[in-house]
């Protein structure tokens, strides 16, 4: 007991100088790790890289379509289209676009941009089908999402 008594002579304050740092650290940690994408990918996505990329200004107007062979192998190896959380067939694209459009305000509806995230092993057939459907749905602005290509030289 006498051992402990001795200690109490010195200041017992917990230093709080580092507390803000810890709070900031936690804040940044959560900021960084929060998943911004609300959908879980169900298709394989190795997106081919490109150089001449353009950044889209209005994030609100962008909706995503994921195309690739399914991760779940029981669904076969043929590329499927994923919209939000579910697989959709090409016939349902028009309906899906209209649903997405209805989420936007009326003036912005025609400016909807569909971002296609397509796996590199996909064949062009399905892409062309999607494009035909998008034209049908009057969602003419499309973007082939691609990460930046590292320069070779």
């Amino acid at each position, binding site marked *: 007991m006498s051992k402990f008594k001795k200690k109490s002579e010195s200041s017992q304050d917990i230093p709080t100088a580092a507390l803000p740092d810890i709070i900031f650290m936690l804040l940044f940690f959560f900021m960084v790790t929060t998943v911004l994408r609300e959908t879980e990918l169900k298709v394989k996505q190795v997106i081919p890289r490109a150089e001449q*990329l353009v*950044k889209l200004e209005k994030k609100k107007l962008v909706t995503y379509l994921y195309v690739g062979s399914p991760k779940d192998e029981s669904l076969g190896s043929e590329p499927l289209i994923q919209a939000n959380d579910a697989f959709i067939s090409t016939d349902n694209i028009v309906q899906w676009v209209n649903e997405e459009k209805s989420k936007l305000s009326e003036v912005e509806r025609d400016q909807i941009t569909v971002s296609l995230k397509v796996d590199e092993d996909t064949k*062009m057939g399905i892409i062309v089908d999607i494009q035909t459907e998008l034209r049908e749905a009057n969602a003419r602005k499309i973007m082939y999402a691609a990460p930046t290509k590292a320069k070779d030289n």
Partner: protein
Amino acid sequence: MARSKDKGSQEVNAGSMADIAFLLLIFFLVTTQIATNKGLTLLLPPKQEEDEPIEIKQQERNLFKIQINSEDQLLVENEPLDDVTQIRTMVYDFVLNFGKPSDTKKGKAKVSDREVYESLPGAMKSYIARSLGSDESSDGPSSAIISLKADRGSSYAIFISILDELNAAYNRIYGERVGLTDEEFRKLNRNDPRQKELYDRARAGIPKAISIAEPSSVGG
């Protein structure tokens, strides 16, 4: 033994805490990939009416044809091509050919081919006068169309690499026109009025006419 030494302050040295926090912050900043909306944009043609097949007769010389077969082999202007990167200069030359520049004002900006030519910087004009202006290539930027036809069996990867080259060619033209590199042109922020003006000036009269043709369902 050691206890007797601890008579002074019992505070933990917190001076380096900030450093640790910054270290972590920088680590996350560097390692995370924030999903960005970057990609190659394309404007699809309007919906096609079923009963009237739109077939505007384009003169052959105003059409730059790129075809991809199911083996991912290229046919550019009816000749096989192995190196995708060559497309960039071919398209650049094709668009800026000014074979028969018209005087009719076209497009949103109401600029004729001849006015486009006059607006180009000297280096581009002399390049066109020296090596382009062929009768067999496009009449002028307003009538030049790039037609990209991919077979249903061709891969998406090659399609993207070609689309990338096409965009590179156009960005080079636009950039050179206003004295920027293609990269600088691409990064112009259209929300800034000054940069928007530059962007519009670069694009006036030279539409980015990339047409993705419907593929044939059989063949290749």
